[in-house]
């Protein structure tokens, strides 16, 4: 297990593509792991206090990591626990393992993720499980759970997997979605535009965009793309 604690309040954002695999390296390797502080190329050890207990693939991030980006990106196994807030791109492209954030997350949680699990106890913002600009498919496997609220663009171009939001969401939920499930326990705005497939379930209020036809248990569409997506209230 490897524990990281910021040494300073970051003036500008830090990019640290750290995965649980880091915990299996030697203390020297960990300390010398390259990160970016603004335009400065620097070492993990220069920005964070490092304490290592054993070699199991687990990261504990203790403190305010809201300015730290790309944590858990591309991880394939192991565990990350964030005790505070976390920055953008948490678990982007991840294929396996588990991330738990006890605070809030920013944008791009689980973007294009293929497997594994992400749980955010607080809020997340935009682009949860989405595709990066110009890419065809967002999240395609695994599960993302947000206990709080999220903002816009949730599960866009989603090709599989599951997103569950316990709070409210903003607009553009499941836009151009192809497969998978999005569940929202609160309310949200525009839902399902250009949806080709998959299921969106909302408990509270929501706005279906024109292009969906009413069916027995909800709506089906988007007819504008010949889609067979399902939107239901539960």
């Amino acid at each position: 297990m490897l524990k990281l604690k910021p040494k300073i309040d970051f003036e500008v954002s830090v990019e640290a593509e750290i995965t649980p695999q880091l915990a299996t390296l030697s203390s020297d390797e960990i300390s010398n792991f390259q990160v970016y502080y603004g335009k400065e190329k620097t070492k993990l050890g220069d920005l964070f206090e490092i304490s290592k207990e054993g070699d199991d693939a687990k990261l504990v991030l203790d403190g305010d990591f809201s300015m730290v980006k790309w944590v858990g990106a591309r991880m394939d196994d192991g565990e990350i626990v964030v005790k505070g807030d976390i920055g953008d791109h948490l678990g982007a492209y991840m294929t396996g393992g588990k991330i738990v954030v006890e605070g809030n997350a920013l944008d791009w949680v689980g973007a294009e993720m293929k497997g594994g699990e992400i749980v955010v106890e607080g809020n997340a913002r935009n682009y949860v499980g989405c595709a990066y600009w110009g890419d065809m498919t967002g999240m395609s496997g695994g599960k993302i759970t947000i206990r709080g609220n999220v903002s816009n663009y949730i599960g866009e171009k989603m090709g599989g997997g599951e997103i569950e939001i316990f709070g409210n969401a903003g607009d553009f939920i499941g836009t151009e979605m192809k497969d998978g499930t999005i569940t929202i326990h609160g309310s949200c705005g525009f839902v399902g535009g250009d949806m080709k497939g998959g299921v969106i379930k909302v408990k509270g209020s929501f706005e279906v965009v024109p292009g969906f036809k009413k069916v027995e248990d909800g709506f089906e569409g988007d007819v504008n793309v010949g889609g067979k997506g399902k939107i239901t209230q539960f």
Partner: protein
Amino acid sequence: MHHMLHIKNGIVVDPKNGINAEKMDIFVKEGKIVEESEVDVKEAKVIDASNKLVVAGGFDMHAHIAGSKINTGREMRPEEMRTVRLIAGKFRASIGRVLLTSPAIGYEYAKMGYTTAFEAAQPPVGALHTHEELDAIPMIDKAALPVFGNWHFVLKYVAEKEWEKLRAFLAWALERTKGFGVKVVNPGGVEAWMYGGNCKSLDDEVPGFNVTPREIITGLIQETENLGLCHSVHLHCNNLGTPGNYQTTIETMKLASKFSNDKRQVLHVTHVQFNAYAGSSWRDVASGAAEIAKYVNSVDNITIDMGQPIFGHATAMTGDAPFQFTLHKLTGSRWSNKDSEIEGGAGIVPIAYLPKNPVHALQWAIGLELGLLIDSDRVVLSTDYPNGGPFTEYPYVMAMLMSKKMREKELERVSPYVQKATGLAAIDNEKTLYEIIQMTRSLPARVMGMDNKGHLGIGADADIAIYNLDPLSIDTANDFEAVYKAFKTSAYTIKGGEIIAKDGELVKEIWGRTFWVDATSNASIEAIDSDLNEMFEKYYSLQRQNYGVEEAWLRKPERLVMG
């Protein structure tokens, strides 16, 4: 600073001068290739080229490297820009998968031993933009071909058979756009697209003008020849991308039969692969390459380039706006379109060539068939970058043309449809190194009418590529991997007498020239003066006085005066 070079003991292949793998020394002074006696050997920097191939710098005569099309392509495809080739430092940051930034274009050509590249389609009203991008490409010499085939002046003058005016217009437009030659894209078809249509045959009438593609092409060849331009009409045929279109292509080529020119072709038909389909639909589409090859080989006034697809990502971008819309409907992919004043239009659609896709495999095979079946002094190697894919894979095409064994290996991974619908598997021809150098150096230079390019004779520009390949010992038919690797990165790339790349690393950033053709003394511009005023007043959204590009605005212009 070494102004003199002594390239020692290289094995020279220089088709224009009939040199085939001869061990010799090359001397360079002030950017030119000179006699040994011109060089103070003690002062000259010596490059040991022992056992290495020494050739003229590569010449890409048809690529889309500058202007609003490639730039819109970049803007619509950020996923293309995530490939990092070089981190900023002594050189600029260089990025791009197939679509490259301007610095990356110059750098990648240089690393591959190419020293000249021409932008093959410049929207005339956007000429200044095209030139800004050309000016942003380091390392190589450049030029741009403005597009004429749907320009209302051309349609009007051809319809009225006002040949003198057409000639004057060509000269005026080349001067205003600082252009190099007469590019024609789907003549008449793009004007028809403004009404939702197209011109798929040579005899379709262009809406609003009493004129057909046949007349436009013939008229433009005639006046390009009368104007005495160094490059011929450069034609993207009608009916591109349609099964059965090879017949349109041959019919189009026949339009050149009554013209001839001692120095060069009178018609260059470009990226012919896209215009070489037999069959009647995408279900029974087949190769028409053999028929086209037969025709091209039988005449001496036509040249072509391949338009070879490379498996992987590409972006279709042409002035053939109706075709681009068809492609968008076929693939469901993103689509940009630009209708451009009264000059024509353009479109952009991302594509990927997949080896297992029957149509893509067919296109790949047809490109190779054209390259293999057509005489090496009539067919230029091109991918129609980025339409067929990256120019950085020219070495792949070179190696494929030289090795049947490599082709057999590649055929195993592509759709079996190729076996049925093309003759590729049965072609035994293997191009020689000499022929490949011809197809990438001397021929493109001749096609463009550039006497100082594409060869290593005395007086030629000192644009030289040295490769880790010994022509005297290499077995190009069997050692295709070595051939590919050698051509991917030069041992040395020398541009205008300066070493700009070495062993695949950049050495020095330099800025090449932009050539443009001034033929205004061969025509009477006054003849069209009042027409220009009238058309600008009525149909353009800008003033005639603000139209065009001044030489002073360009980084390193070079005017070629047509005598």
